[in-house]
């Protein structure tokens, strides 16, 4: 009997394919793509300011709202934050990635790989929480600053407009540090993968031809690592754009995209504006991905 059924399907591979493909595709088309479409639809509705109800009527006025100076500022601030976080991640990740790819023994490499990915899989909220402990006014950073008698410098820094705040745990600097910490593994892995693919002979050839190590690094290694850097930056950039937890916990009153979206949909029930707002990071990311593809970043994934 089972043989019969098996043979029926064996002779009809297309039926089998359909049976295998249908459930996941249906799920994704309905649940995911469907949701994205409703988001798109919602972004063309608007919230009636008097009744507080969403009016189901095609309009562009929600999108026009995005161009309010205050909203443009939010986009600008978030993009700037994403860019600085990405840059910092590259700078911190590179030595470790380079060490992993070139110098570490196989055992060491396995260990380091685990050391990099483990935080990635440990709880995101808790990792954020740990910085609440570190950056607090009475926390380890202030303690350390007092220990080396540099607490006046920390205070001076916190008084700076733009980056400072009442304490590190309520400042743009705090947001920046936590973002770098949270997304760093996403940068290390692709760079390491890209560097791994650079054949050793290439570096030796460069040395042979008379390049100093610094020249080799700049003219051979860096260009070859570049696709990895771009791949990593896709993650750090995209994740920073869409996060609201960190700005919520470490920020003051200045909004970031994620926090704005959360606030609009939550407290004010303005889902159309939240949806339209989300188009911002989507468009920024699409542009970013197109550029990244041009630069060959997808070969390093």
């Amino acid at each position, binding site marked *: 009997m089972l*043989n019969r059924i*098996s*043979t029926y399907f064996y002779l009809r591979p297309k039926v089998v394919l359909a049976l295998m493909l249908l459930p996941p595709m249906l799920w994704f088309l309905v649940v995911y793509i469907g949701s994205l479409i409703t988001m798109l639809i919602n972004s063309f509705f608007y919230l009636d300011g008097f009744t507080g109800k969403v009016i189901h009527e095609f309009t562009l006025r929600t999108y026009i709202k995005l161009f309010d100076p205050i909203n443009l500022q939010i986009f600008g601030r978030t993009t700037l934050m994403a860019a600085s976080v990405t840059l910092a991640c590259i700078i911190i990740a590179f030595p470790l990635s380079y060490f992993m790819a070139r110098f570490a023994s196989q055992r060491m490499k396995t260990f380091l790989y685990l050391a990099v990915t483990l935080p990635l899989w440990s709880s995101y909220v808790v990792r954020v929480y740990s910085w609440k402990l570190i950056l607090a006014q009475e926390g380890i950073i202030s303690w350390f600053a007092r220990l080396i008698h540099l607490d006046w410098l920390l205070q001076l820094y916190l008084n700076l407009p733009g980056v400072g705040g009442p304490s590190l745990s309520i400042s743009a600097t705090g947001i920046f540090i936590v973002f770098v910490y949270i997304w760093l593994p996403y940068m290390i892995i692709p760079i390491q993968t890209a560097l791994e693919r650079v054949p050793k002979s290439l570096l030796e050839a460069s040395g042979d031809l008379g390049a100093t190590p610094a020249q080799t690094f700049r003219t051979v290694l860096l260009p070859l690592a570049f696709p990895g850097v771009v791949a990593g930056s896709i993650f750090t950039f995209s994740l920073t754009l869409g996060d609201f937890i960190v700005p919520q916990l470490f920020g003051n009153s200045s909004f970031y995209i994620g926090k704005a979206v959360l606030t609009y949909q939550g407290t004010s029930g303005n889902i159309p504006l939240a949806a339209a707002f989300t188009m911002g990071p989507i468009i920024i990311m699409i542009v970013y991905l197109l550029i990244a593809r041009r630069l060959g970043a997808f070969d390093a994934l």
Partner: protein
Amino acid sequence: MSASVAIEFKNVSRIFSVKQEDQSGDVKAVENVSLQIRDGEFFSLLGPSGSGKTTSLRMIAGFDRPTSGQILLYGQDVSSLPPYERDVNTVFQDYALFPHMTVGENVAYGLMIKKVSKIECEKRVDDMMDLVQLTGFAGRKPSQLSGGQRQRVALARALINHPKVLLLDEPLGALDLKLRQQMQIELKFIQQRVGITFIFVTHDQEEALTMSDRIAVFNHGRIEQIGTPAEIYEHPITQFVAGFVGVSNLVSGEVAKRITGSDVKFSVRPEKIHLGMLGDKPEADTFIAEGKVRDVIYLGLYTRYLVELDGGGDLVVVEQNLKTTSMDVMQARGQLVRLFWKKEHISYMGD
């Protein structure tokens, strides 16, 4: 159909439709192939990669089905039977051993599926392990075996069901030369012991010549020639076969006419040509050509001469180094020579 035919192809074609960015269309992997393989034969499908030999084998196994035509197994049409309903087993190119099972479990797999009793199962596994000379290896994992040993396990696993036909898909390809030669002899021996029809796919002409009772030479999805190793070698009927199996001199046009009197293209094997002095007299039924030795390559067992014919064209001649030494043969360079070969040693090319 007479019972002595194990496998018969009746006008079998297999067409794949290819959809790619740069090209789309049909690829005829196997095109209108008809073929009979006799019971108990060691039959080789020989050809370059992409010639259709592996597709043909897969269609016999049931992994693939003909687009048109029929495949008969002892007279029964099996064209649309799934693999598990065909009394045919396969030794795969990569062996395809199940990594999560021991060697013994691998070999017993077919019996386990058939729900053969444990006692009989054990006995038959032991017999098989003896046959392939792996007695005592049943408890190991495939990953603990060498390439040659895995090969034997794959063979034992495929033979344990006593299939009517055993298919071997380039099973020796991954082995090094020494081991391969040893396995060639052993395979032949095992085939004679079990008396099962073996169908052997290979791209190695020497391997095919060594082992087969008969060979089918494939090219571009078609069969160029079927015959015994001697027939294929001595009398290739197409230019492809002459070039693919062994080394051949191909002569055509004016040059052919000067030698044979007709401009029909023909081939002659280098070792059939006798290298003589200008004045030497030919025996009866011999073709003659004259020329100058342009190049001499000493290869130990034999020497290869490249002779530039007077009327244009080159012939490669191979002579065993029976009495000569390297010093002697090198003297031949630049000499004028006369070449003889028996008329029966040439094959006229149909195409």
